[in-house]
């Protein structure tokens, strides 16, 4: 079983679990299984078509799946799968002072 790491921001939707063991062949299956296990989590990571939301990245080990086969990327039982939220922000300053 692969281990899926849940970011702090989303643990409110996984009964506070920081990691969940999932059996699956691909990242897509792992994410779907996770979403089925925790339905409140689903809208935060998947869009209406079941694709990964733009603000969310998934890594296997240190590799972003956007750089491999996306949701079709195979998952081995020893893999660590991390859900990574995009972080950005900034002030209202309209132009450089």
């Amino acid at each position, binding site marked *: 079983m692969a281990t899926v790491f849940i970011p702090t*921001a*989303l643990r*409110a939707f996984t009964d506070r679990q920081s990691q969940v063991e999932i059996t699956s062949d691909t990242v897509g299956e792992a994410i779907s299984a996770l979403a089925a296990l925790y339905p409140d989590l689903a809208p935060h990571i998947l869009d209406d078509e079941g694709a990964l939301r733009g603000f969310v990245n998934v890594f296997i080990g*240190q590799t972003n799946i956007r750089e491999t086969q996306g949701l079709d990327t195979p998952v081995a039982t020893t893999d660590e799968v991390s859900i990574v939220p995009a972080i*950005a*922000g*900034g*002030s*209202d300053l309209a132009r450089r*002072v």
Partner: protein
Amino acid sequence: MIDLPLSIAKRVHAEGVLAFPNECCGALLGSVDAVGTQELRHVVDILALPNTREAEEQYHRFVITPEDYLRAEQFARTEGLDLVGFYHSHPNAPARPSDYDREHAWPNLSYVIVATLLRDGKAAAGDVTSWELSLDRSRFDAEEQVAL
């Protein structure tokens, strides 16, 4: 709720001053306690992360790469801590979240903002505030600072 010790606030100050007139950014590391239905996030360490926005936008924008986020979370784990939020600076602007901040924020994290400014010709830090996104994403609520 956040427990942000003065020693940590001073380190955020220093990061803000160092990056001025650009925005700094980094992760807040610590632990989370349940207090009734609320969460109390204790910050015990920070990890400065690179602002990877293009240089000409950094005066009012920051972005943390997913790779750096992952590095911060894995560093926290090796320290026996959790990633409990993020900090960034607002150069020449108030320590209040912008709409842009809110649109890019996540719930269940603390967002610490430090105002930075030029004082007597030198970069200096102003207010430090902390905010939490409401679950429906409609607003940022000022976080109660808990002194323990």
